């Protein structure tokens, strides 16, 4: 048998020629290449494991981040805040049965019981319950008790507001414009009374005002730096015809460094309580910002400033120059303090308005159309001399008068900076950033999943076959992945930067924006760029399609990993921003003006005055 086997072996040996070196070279090249294609060094394994971990983490964290209650609450509150800014200009606080306040009606009877059951020691919730309570007496009692036990000024402010709603009815000065040409006191008084809506009673009833004044007094004690309780006191004392005391309070108020109305604190508290009670529709929630249950002392400050200007004019006509100056200068100072201490845009504008009212007798800002569309440095307006300019200058001197003029110009310039800022930034940009980042994280996740699916499909072919067909360095892989991601990044930046995109009412609309176009572009490039590259990277003899698969296998994991890192980073940042936003929103640290001031820096604090910002003449028209 062994011989036969040897014979067969010898026969086969003779039948086959010797293998040439060329065959060996070919075989060795194939084997070496395959070893490189199949090889999984430890570092590569580690990188793969890390990549998988990052992808899983990104998927998990993004899903968690999008669904956690904090995120949903932030989104709802942001949308409500943005919505309230739109409706605030249309609706004034007042009647709780007004259409915009109706969504709150079902909640009012339950607020106190709800807070006592779920948040008995949460001051923010207690404040909101006191303001929103349908039963006014119960609401007042809750606010007063909490104010006395805690000494928190916002509770005294809220208590004063509820008392004020109860009455007595008081005048609204409204848009009164005193005619500076009126020659005597009687005519001025007549015009003032005519323009007040509703007509003020001749004298407020003392008995009814007494509890309000008592509460204001307690508020002052709890809030010694705040000018607002003094403004209120002046307002009521003026209604009681105690004018000297009213002027004293007004001058004292002008010395207080802060003007705090607690409007934002109360509106946020109301909004949060309603959200916790189940009101999650942003539009309905927005009414919590605009309805009557928020202390709206801003209107009182503006009315009081108008009263002060009127009283100054009356004093001027009566020959009481020092009183006139006191009324006007106190109003100017109060306006400046309001500007300086404002955390919201509305507060800032209120300050500018009060300052302008106080200075109106001396200096007046007016639109100037005489020199064409761009005729004035301050948005087609300039400072002109007020009707009582000479009188005012005679009392304070030219230098102080000019200082006042420059300060007014600076306030106007800050308004222009604000307008410029709003043109380049979404007005709700800081508020919407957490939401935008969350949307970007979800978009990155979607891209990741789409690319991972394509990769999975490509992986169904044998790796070694595809990998062997092409040569692609690590640098080339990174370059292709980076090129593919350019449209998505571009779409993301446009989505982030361009105002209005993220305010789409429906989430799905996000994908029909720049972001959706960017994602689609990236998907196409992620598939087509490896095909393009395969023309140069494929090995001799390898089919183009196989080389394409090989390139896809190498490029897609890098792209998926980059998407995962982006999604993870965006989700983490969005979560941090949401937390920060919620903290700022629920506390008193949220400052609407801060980003504007930070953006302009010195340009905001010390704006350079345009040389022709004013004219030494009376306003046109």
């Amino acid at each position, binding site marked *: *048998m062994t011989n*036969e*086997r040897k*014979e*067969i*072996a010898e*026969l*086969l*040996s*003779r*039948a*086959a*020629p010797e*293998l040439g070196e060329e*065959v*060996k070279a*070919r*075989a*060795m090249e*194939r*084997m*070496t290449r*395959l*070893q490189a294609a*199949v*090889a999984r060094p430890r570092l590569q394994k580690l990188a793969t494991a890390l990549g998988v971990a990052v992808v899983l983490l990104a998927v998990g964290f993004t899903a968690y981040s999008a669904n956690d209650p904090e995120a949903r609450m932030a989104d709802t509150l942001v949308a409500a805040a943005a919505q309230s800014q739109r409706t605030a200009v249309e609706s004034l606080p007042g009647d709780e049965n007004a259409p915009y306040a109706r969504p709150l009606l079902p909640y009012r009877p339950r607020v106190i019981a709800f807070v006592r059951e779920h948040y008995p020691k949460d001051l923010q919730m207690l404040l909101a319950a006191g303001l929103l309570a349908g039963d006014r007496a119960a609401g007042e009692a809750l606010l007063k008790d909490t104010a006395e036990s805690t000494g928190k000024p916002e509770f005294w402010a809220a208590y004063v507001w509820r008392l004020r709603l109860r009455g007595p009815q008081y005048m609204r000065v409204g848009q009164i414009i005193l005619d500076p040409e009126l020659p005597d006191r009687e005519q001025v008084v007549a015009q003032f009374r005519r323009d007040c809506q509703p007509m003020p009673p001749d004298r407020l009833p003392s008995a009814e005002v007494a509890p309000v004044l008592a509460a204001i007094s307690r508020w002052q004690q709890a809030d010694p730096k705040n000018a607002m309780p003094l403004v209120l006191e002046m307002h009521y004392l003026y209604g009681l015809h105690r004018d000297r005391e009213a002027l004293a309070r007004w001058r004292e108020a002008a010395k207080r460094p802060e003007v705090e109305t607690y409007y934002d604190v109360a509106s946020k508290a109301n909004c949060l309580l309603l959200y916790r009670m189940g009101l999650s529709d942003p539009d309905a929630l927005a009414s919590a910002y605009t309805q009557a249950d928020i202390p709206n002392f801003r209107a009182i400050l503006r009315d009081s400033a108008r009263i002060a200007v009127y009283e100054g004019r009356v004093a001027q006509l009566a020959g009481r120059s020092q009183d006139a100056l006191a009324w006007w200068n106190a109003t100017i100072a109060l306006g400046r303090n309001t500007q300086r201490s404002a955390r919201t845009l509305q507060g800032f504008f209120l300050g500018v308005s009060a300052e302008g009212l106080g200075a109106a007798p001396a200096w007046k800002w007016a639109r100037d159309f005489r020199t064409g569309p761009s005729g004035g440095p301050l948005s087609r307006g300039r400072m002109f001399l007020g009707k009582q300019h000479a009188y005012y200058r005679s009392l304070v001197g030219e230098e102080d008068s000019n200082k006042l003029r420059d300060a007014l110009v600076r306030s106007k310039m800050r308004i222009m900076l604000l307008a410029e800022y709003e043109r380049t930034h979404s007005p709700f940009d800081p508020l919407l950033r957490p939401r935008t980042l969350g949307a970007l994280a979800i978009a990155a996740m979607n891209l990741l999943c789409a690319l991972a699916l394509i990769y999975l499909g490509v992986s169904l072919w044998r790796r*070694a076959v595809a990998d062997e067909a092409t040569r692609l360095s690590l640098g080339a892989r990174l370059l292709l992945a980076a090129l593919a991601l350019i449209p998505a990044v571009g779409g993301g930046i446009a989505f982030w930067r361009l105002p209005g995109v993220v305010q789409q009412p429906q989430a799905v609309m996000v994908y029909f924006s720049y972001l959706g176009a960017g994602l689609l572009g990236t998907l196409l490039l992620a598939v087509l760029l490896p095909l393009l590259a395969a023309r140069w990277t494929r090995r001799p003899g390898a089919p183009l399609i196989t080389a394409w698969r090989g390139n896809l296998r190498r490029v897609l994991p890098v792209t998926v990993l980059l998407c995962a890192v982006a999604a993870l980073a965006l989700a983490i940042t969005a979560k941090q921003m949401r937390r920060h936003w919620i903290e700022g929103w629920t506390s008193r640290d949220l400052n609407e003006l801060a980003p504007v001031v930070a953006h302009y820096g010195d340009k905001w604090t010390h704006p350079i005055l345009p040389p022709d910002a004013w004219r030494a003449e009376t306003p046109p028209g």
Partner: protein
Amino acid sequence: MTEHAEAALVRGLAARAPEACATLYDRFARGVHRYAVARLRGEVGLAEEIVVETMAEVVRDIRRLDPGRSSLSAWVYGIARRRVLLEIRRQQRRKSVPPWGQVTLESVRETSDGPSLESRALSRLEAQRQVALLTEILSEVEMEALMLSGVEELSAREIGRVMGRSERAVHSILHRARTKARERLVGDDE
């Protein structure tokens, strides 16, 4: 190749050691080539391709080898056999032998550079003729078993592993094949 050397080669291939490829080639290329030439009836060019592809597949799939179930030799020839069968099926689909597969004695003479080469070529052609005779008298299975037995000296168990037969069946097939081959080759010599 001893068991120890074979295990070392498998480890080397699994560890992607470059020298293991050379060892693999030196160890199996010639045998696979002979086997393929015999099975493909002298198609030398195709046999060379099968050598390259078989070596590549071994390197690629070495982790699939289960030493407990199969020796390296049996596994390598299993791969070679599968590729040969694929090639045979492909050839059967063709209407004629492709031009590159047709090598005449004249062409060998024309390209030869001396009598030594010519005599070697003649000897090879004679051997191929005898192999072809064997192919005619032996069944497919018998020829397969005989080739594997002759080329690599695989045991009956290993041949069974390659061909999917039991050890006893392989013994029986080999016995019949050798008897027929002996008769035919002796007769041919006479």
